[in-house]
């Protein structure tokens, strides 16, 4: 296959960026999307040109590092799939593909397709944990947890913090990301003691980072590679109300 690529190039955080045209030759349908970019980069390198910067690590859909907007959709056209797991057989010879970085005020571009998502770490640091020190934990079976509760917690815990939810949202809201962690910990007895404090602290931090509010468009759910449902956001809202009422 031969593909026409329009790729966002931006030299640094403060530089102006633009879409640059490239041609990808000899693309095999078995390639992953990122392998296709590897091949483009390899050919740039041989010409002594600077490669296109993009993030990836595990390349199997679990680390959350890859983060490309493909033809306007975070992670591209396949539902429930990170862009590292997207394969080129999804495209046709002669297609034009636009590739851009996540765009959100809280995720400034570092270079080309790479953005800074450290705001997510700061949201977790604000309260996304159970405050126990290593050492004194009771036996793992001391508190039975019903299977369906454990499963529901796991459903939320699957979030890979890629940030596609933010990139897809017109308000650049981090609600899906935050609510997944808040739901997981609120469901489990271990997370109960800090429930109120956690939800308030995380939401405050998200506001401080410049993430927007949620207006229920569900774009986040549509692009989430782990298919985390927006029911988590409803749960977070309930947790928040509960916390505010408890404070009164």
């Amino acid at each position, binding site marked *: 296959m031969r593909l026409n690529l329009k790729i966002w190039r931006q030299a640094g955080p403060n530089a102006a960026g633009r879409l640059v045209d490239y041609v990808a030759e000899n693309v095999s349908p078995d390639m992953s999307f990122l392998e296709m970019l590897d091949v483009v980069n390899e050919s740039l*390198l*041989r010409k*002594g040109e600077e490669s296109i910067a993009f993030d990836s690590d595990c390349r199997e859909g679990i680390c959350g590092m890859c983060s490309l907007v493909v033809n306007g959709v975070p992670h591209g056209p396949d539902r429930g799939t990170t862009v590292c797991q997207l394969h080129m057989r999804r495209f046709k010879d002669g297609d034009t593909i636009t590739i851009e970085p996540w765009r959100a005020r809280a995720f400034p571009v570092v270079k080309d397709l790479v953005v800074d998502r450290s705001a997510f770490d700061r949201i977790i640091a604000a309260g996304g944990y159970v405050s126990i020190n290593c050492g004194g934990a009771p036996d793992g*079976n001391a508190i039975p947890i019903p*299977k369906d509760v454990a499963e529901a917690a796991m459903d939320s815990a*699957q979030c890979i913090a890629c940030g596609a939810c933010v990139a897809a949202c017109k308000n650049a809201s981090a609600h899906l990301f935050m609510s997944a962690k808040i739901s997981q910990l609120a469901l489990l007895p271990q997370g109960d003691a800090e429930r109120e404090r956690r939800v308030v602290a995380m939401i405050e931090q998200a506001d401080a980072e410049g993430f927007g509010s949620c207006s229920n468009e569900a774009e986040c759910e549509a692009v989430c590679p782990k298919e985390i449902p927006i029911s988590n956001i409803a749960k977070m809202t309930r947790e928040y109300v509960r916390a505010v009422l408890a404070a009164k």
Partner: protein
Amino acid sequence: MTLDSKIPAGPIAEKWDRHKFEMKLVNPANKRKFTIIVVGTGLAGASAAASLGELGYNVLSFCIQDSPRRAHSIAAQGGINAAKNYQNDGDSIYRLFYDTVKGGDYRSREANVYRLAQVSVDIIDQCVAQGVPFAREYGGLLDNRSFGGAQVSRTFYARGQTGQQLLLGAYQSLMRQVHEKSVRMFARREMLDLVLIDGNARGIVVRNLVTGEIEKYAADAVCLATGGYGTVYYLSTNAVNSNVTAAWRAHKRGALFANPCFTQIHPTCIPVSGDHQSKLTLMSESLRNDGRVWVPKQKGDRRSPEQIPEEERDYYLERKYPSFGNLVPRDVASRNAKQACDDGRGVGESGLAVYLDFKDAIKRLGPEVIKEKYGNLFHMYQKITDENPYEVPMRIYPAIHYTMGGLWVDYNLMSTIPGLHVLGEANFSDHGANRLGASALMQGLADGYFVIPYTIGHYLASTPLPKVTTDHDAFKQAADNVQQRINTLLSVKGNRGIREIHRELGRIMWDDVGMARTQESLTRALTEIPKLREEFWHSVSVPGSPDNLNQSLEYAGRVADYLEFAELLALDALERRESCGGHFREESQTPDGEALRDDEHYSYVAAWEFQGVGKRPELHKEELVFDEVHPTQRSYK
């Protein structure tokens, strides 16, 4: 140099407790005066940094990715072992210890393995308390499965994402310490040198991957938890940024490297589809519970699988190992797949694959049951290969998955450089020549949560450590070295891609230092690797500048280190003229083709001391003593 493993005296079951009592403590009020650097935020590094922060030390934590949560540990699927005996099926600390020593083919240190089994039970408690959503039974208690051929059910899991959930638990504890300001987090930093002052590890030099700045950090002790070196083979199941750089640079500063030739090959990965491929994907071992492995009996049979009648198929594992069948251990399954392909009986376009066929299981259990058990794996397989494994057999092939070798450490996890501690996959200690499934996660967390918090305190309390700052000459010299290597890489300005050279190195390693090694193949590798290294420094193209994000520069640095390290791996494999675990020397096999150990000559840890690039390193031996588990020949017939 004499290697002192510092194994405490006393009966094996009492060593750790006694040692904990005998070690010196740091007064709580003094802890914050000590700075500890932890490089790596995988299970080992994140758990260490969090725990040390909780104790009150001043911790500096580093990782390559944009967030500590993205370390390679996140990709582990299957589970984590612990000797809880919740299933009442006869498990115990001693049994886990025994299985691990035997599984490692008697090339690990008994005392370390026993301690690992001991603390395994605390790991589960710690993770549950963090809110890790482990699988549960209907009664609400923790569920277990059996894994990797173990005869007891001791593996805890969180769906197929156990590594993710354990890492997020550790990451959250780490971020809590960041919030409390006991840990400072430095993401997108790559450690490029270790700084020694008066012989002790006193700091590191890193490159800020965003600004390109060379930064210096001083400390009272350094912990490396930088993972394994599987990507020396280019294609592996490891994350693409995995590297040997931190460990290798520490090695060049004097830390001995132990058993580099002990690498693990996993039998069930999706085969290579072309040159463009950047990594291989693991298909869980559990598939072998219901899938049958076969190849055509006839060489070069190009018919599609459904056209090959039953009597013309060779179910070679069932034929050769009637009692274990398709469930033989990883190393045995991998070698047999290679043999079948070497015979010209491999399948698929490249001929480098064997079938894993679910037809009979689907007939017996129905597609619904198979879907319930393996649905997500079948889905992943179909996504990657565009073939439906419910209808056509899967094609699988072995791939590099884990590295048992690593920097040599004593019982306290300290390397031969005082103050430099090594944790997780980056050290060599617990898995001998072969790691059992679900034991890497256990080891990483054991090292970080339950071992290093004690042993590092002892080091700090018993070592005179005058204050140093990054103004010290040793920092300047290390930073200059780093800068110079970067300048050299950028100035080659050749025309060969970095990936192309890495791929070439991978081919040498896989063909000649891979699943079956011979005197001849290893000797060939030892002439080809230096040639390729030479070629790299003459013809590599590393465009861009040093003073911003430059992924080509990062990658080139890692490949350059691999080109040095690969030689050590091959040399270690050449010098170990026996087969054991994942290391198979064709010259050393039983009449029916199984790995043959040579305990009389090779019951030691090979720890190598760096003498210069291209110079023969010096071998130091740590003799292994087996007081508890007596070495026998493994048999799976």
